[in-house]
């Protein structure tokens, strides 16, 4: 009798559990489980623009996007108030146009006043920093061919087209450490096909230049950051290193970059081979970049 009751109680207990289990199962289906489309996305907005003062960043355009930048540097600020601290002195201006061929490859064209340099540039993403596992840095490769289009007819030795060329390859490796801090390291190599006093570089006898560039951005406000760049010559240690310190303001599609730098240069080959002023003698120049982004097509 007792044995039978135990069996019945077990049956009731088991049935109740089963019923409750089904009820709970039904209840748990009430809401959809929230799942992320990508649980390890790439880190975004390591820098505000494709340029960091004068260096390339790891920011690339998407397919169909178009980036326009106008860059300036002026005379040395130690030229005094009569020259509005360099603003009245000859500006170096660079017009820069970049197009997103696809999400990983960009093509660019630019023209700089200094040596009337026209450049054709390709930028390619090698890897992207991931939020969790995966690559800890973003890396791009940048290639450019420049043509010095200055009038050099005054020279006794004529310049052929190939004499006017320079070639630059650089890597941009960057990591966004936090919403505030991003760091960039960029080895840069440049070769000038022909050099001489007519080319605006520091050492007219040297055709090969290798430098280690670096920079960082630190956000002091959600849309404003302090920026610093340095370029240390490796292959030509007698050259003066470049230093720049700036302030970026971002307004969505526009990025305004204002800076003081020791160089007049606005592009990589002249940045690493060009003349740099001394900080101790206030041989700094004011400069600014205005960056704008458009969508050309899907």
């Amino acid at each position, binding site marked *: 009798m007792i044995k*039978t*009751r135990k069996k*019945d*109680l077990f*049956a*009731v207990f088991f*049935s*109740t559990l*089963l*019923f409750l289990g*089904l*009820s709970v199962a*039904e209840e748990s*289906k*009430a*809401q*959809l489980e*929230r*799942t*992320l*489309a*990508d649980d390890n*996305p790439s880190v*975004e*907005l390591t820098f505000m623009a494709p340029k960091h003062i004068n260096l390339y960043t790891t920011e690339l*355009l*998407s397919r169909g*996007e178009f980036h326009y930048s106008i860059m300036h540097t002026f005379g040395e600020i130690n030229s005094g108030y009569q020259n509005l601290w360099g603003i009245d002195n000859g500006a170096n201006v660079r017009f820069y146009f970049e197009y997103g061929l696809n*999400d990983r490859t960009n093509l660019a064209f630019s023209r700089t006043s200094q040596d009337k340099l026209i450049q054709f540039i390709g930028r390619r993403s090698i890897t992207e920093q991931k*939020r969790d596992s995966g690559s800890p840095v973003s890396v791009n490769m940048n290639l450019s061919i420049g043509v010095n289009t200055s009038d050099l007819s005054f020279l006794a030795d004529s310049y052929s087209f190939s004499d006017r060329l320079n070639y630059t390859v650089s890597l941009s490796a960057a990591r966004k450490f936090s*919403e505030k801090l991003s760091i960039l390291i960029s080895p840069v190599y440049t070769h000038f096909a022909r050099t001489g006093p007519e080319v605006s570089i520091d050492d007219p006898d040297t055709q090969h230049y290798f430098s280690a560039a670096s920079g960082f951005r630190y956000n002091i406000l*959600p*849309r404003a950051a302090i920026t610093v760049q340095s370029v240390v010559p490796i292959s030509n240690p007698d050259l003066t290193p470049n230093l720049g310190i700036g302030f970026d*303001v971002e*307004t*969505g*599609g*526009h990025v305004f970059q204002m800076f003081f730098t020791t160089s007049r240069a606005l592009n990589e080959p002249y940045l690493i081979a060009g003349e740099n002023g001394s900080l101790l003698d206030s041989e700094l120049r004011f400069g600014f970049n205005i960056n704008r*982004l458009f*969508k050309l097509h*899907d």
Partner: protein
Amino acid sequence: MNKVTTVLFAILFGVTVYNAHAQEYTSAEGYVEFVSTAPLLEFKGVSDQLHGLIDLDQNLVDYYVDLNTLETGIRRRDRDMRNSYLETDRFPFAEFTGELTKGLEQIRAGDLPANVEASGIFTMRDIGRDVAVEGTISAGEGGGLLLEASWIVRLEDYDIDRPSVLFYELSEEQTINIRIQLKQTN
């Protein structure tokens, strides 16, 4: 006691049969767009990653989208929206959970299309607000349902700042349009 056991098994059988005929629909594909209409600029953030569920027995309407999948056509703007305004690292989902307050019986009876209204909570950035959403449910592909709805949200209700220095003018009111194909899952 045998009777009790029998009754319990009968209940279980009933529950099983009931579940076999439950009317639950989940999304096969879903589309959502956030439309910003400012005086000088209209643009959309769109995603085809809208997931949804309609359970006619429990009278439950539930859908969500991972805001990381929103695209406005310019990646730089997408990144800006995600990082500066929506903060999708911390608050990845926009979601609605509620119930049909109009049209439920019509849908249960299979009388489609039906004008419907759902009341519930729409949540973004972990801030939930009561909303009433009007839309239509019509016959979908393969015996499923097609839900289309639209409503307006105010950004300040969800503590979303608008750009103070403009490059894109972002409207304070965003029109949300959704379209989900739902298929019966049991």
